[in-house]
């Protein structure tokens, strides 16, 4: 049951991606190997050591971000992180990062999971989709190229729509005093 649903999502996503391939945005799926090279801590016993550079094919473009947004709902990230504000999982739209904001670090978070309740999606999400999720996650807090991020959220934001707006009785008359009707 579980695998079938996942397969369906993956196939659907793959189909969508095929079509969009023509747009030339597609990046070759990067490898998930050897990405955990950024230090997650400011503590460096016996002096700091420089992390070896990692090859990372992650791209920040409009296609990746918008695909990532769809996947963020399809893989139920929304249920735990809402649309960035958080819930069962932490907020992702703020400037606080427990495990780092770098693309490789977010990649590891999604693939490996994290101890306090972030599930490991290893083997469940193809690498290229994980990178798309990474692009979207970063865009939530304004990281990445702003040109690639949508300028309008699809979610239910905004004030009360007029259809549900309770009647606002005007409090102060803007008429000059002299124009007010005298009490009967």
């Amino acid at each position, binding site marked *: 049951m579980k695998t079938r649903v996942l397969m369906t999502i993956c196939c659907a996503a793959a189909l969508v991606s095929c079509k969009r391939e023509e747009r030339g945005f597609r990046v070759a799926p990067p490898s998930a190997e050897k990405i955990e090279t950024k230090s997650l801590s400011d503590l460096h016993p016996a002096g700091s050591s420089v992390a070896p550079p990692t090859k990372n094919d992650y791209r920040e473009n409009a296609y990746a971000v918008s695909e990532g947004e769809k996947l963020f709902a399809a893989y*139920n990230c929304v249920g735990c992180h809402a649309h960035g504000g958080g819930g069962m999982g932490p907020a992702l739209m703020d400037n606080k990062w427990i495990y780092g904001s770098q693309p490789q670090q977010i990649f590891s978070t999604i693939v490996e999971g994290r101890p306090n309740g972030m599930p490991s999606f290893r083997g469940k999400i193809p690498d290229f989709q994980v990178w798309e999720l990474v692009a979207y996650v970063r865009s939530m807090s304004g990281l990445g190229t702003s040109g690639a991020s949508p300028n309008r959220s699809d979610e239910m934001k905004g004030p009360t729509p007029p259809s549900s707006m309770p009647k606002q009785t005007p409090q102060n008359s803007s008429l000059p005093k002299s124009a007010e009707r005298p009490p009967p």
Partner: protein
Amino acid sequence: MPGRNYQATRYSGLDQINTGNAKDLKVAWTFSTGVNRGHEAAPLVVGDTMYVVTPFPNILYALDLKNGGAAKWKYQPEPASAAQGVACCDLVNRGCVFSNGKIIFNTLDDHTIAVDANTGKEIWKTKLGDINHGETITMAPLVVKDKVYVGNSGGELGVRGWLTCLDSNSGKTLWRAWSTGSDADCLIGPDFKPFYKKDQGKELGVSTWPPNRWQIGGGTVWGWVTYDPESNLIYYGTGNPGVWNPELRPGDNKWACSIFARDADTGAAKWAYQMNPHDEFDHDGINENLVLDLPINGQTRKVLLAAQRNGYVYMWDRTTGEVLSATPFIRITSSFGVDLKTGELHTNPEKKPMTGKTVRDVAPAAPGAKDWQPCAWSPRTNLLYIPHQNLAMDYQGTEASYIEGTPYLGVNVKMYANGNANRGEFCAWDPFQKKKVWAIQEDLPVWSGTVVTAGDITFYGTMDGWFKCVNAKTGDVLWQFKCGSGIIGQPVTYKGPDGKQYVAVLAGVGGWPGAIVAADLDPRDPTGALGFVNAMTDLPQKTTKGGMLYVFALP
């Protein structure tokens, strides 16, 4: 037990503190739990000891009442850290119970544990569920004689609900009653006689679902279990059906959002009543069902009384499951009322959720008119004291994919005050006149429990930290004290070893409405915490987190 008695009246016969002297209450002692999540538990007093169980990591403290509340011992179950990721609405725990020398409580990672009440040594520990299915346990067990009743949480993750009965001496599972699936799984047999036609029939736990969907159908049992010693029946309600978006699960979805009456020994179902067939709005039916004998139309009726999430105060005949009355206690737009002849809830077709559509002004909102926070009943005033929220919501259906161990929702939610009124209320309900006798309006949702005493006083707390004592007859606030953090715990009162009456409550904001503070959620996303964030954006300015026990007494 947190309900004070099997009937869950939360009524105490103590009257040293009363309407005359409550204004003199002072802090007697305090105790910091060292935990920063929402504290929903009731402190439990047995002899000279008070037991407090914290939210995750579910530490159990034994506090010495003869020694200013100093800790005698603590027991740390060390639940799996990953459980934090699958707990829908903060990492709460609603309390522990005492039975035959043992303290029994549940952990977020699905264990029920019995600890020696004197020494704090573990006696048994039974694993009842699996966090990888999305299951957690947050409820306080009920213990009757040598049996412990425990239910699971996880209705937001497509968990299949159950109530499990354990042997309190060995921790062995005696039986499990599932909330969905075959009659055999639901312990529905020849004794099962629901009152209404809509609840009668065979294998309804399967046939009221799309094929096989009962397997992920919710109906978790995360609320309260009550007991009637006379008939030896237990009563409890089940949670929302799996996947919130109702369009994705055509059918009545039995036995989600239902009340069950079961034989306390065998678990055999006696009757059931589904409150919200095909629940549309997460209106779980898990609230406490008080077991009362009340004079109705000149006759003493054996009833269950409950203020339910869908906005009605229900009174059932507890022997048959007949609804005697169902009266709105807040402004309701999701339904028009309950037909007492058919037992049917008349839902509002205008508010019917659909994928891709946003319905506005649904009241009550997802947490209902009242959530888990328990009421109290005073036999002196014959009033039901109801702490509750008053919220409406926008509800947008989306697609949903089931991935085991992740949320199964298919909706975006945004909550706000119901009908521009206050977000919370503490009221006294007269079940005979079917109306409020008095009500205290609160700015924030009232997410604490309550207790009422023979001194005709009742207590509750606010999410910005005020602990209040109220005249149970008039609703006048007699005394209040500002605690360090918002209150969502259950106040209790007890007679100390010195013969004096005390009142205790845990402060420590959190829970579903308080997650914005307890889990540092971002107020800019209205859909945060399943939409509760939108209604609570001001809470971070009004309180800070921190678990602390407060005990009060007269000087």
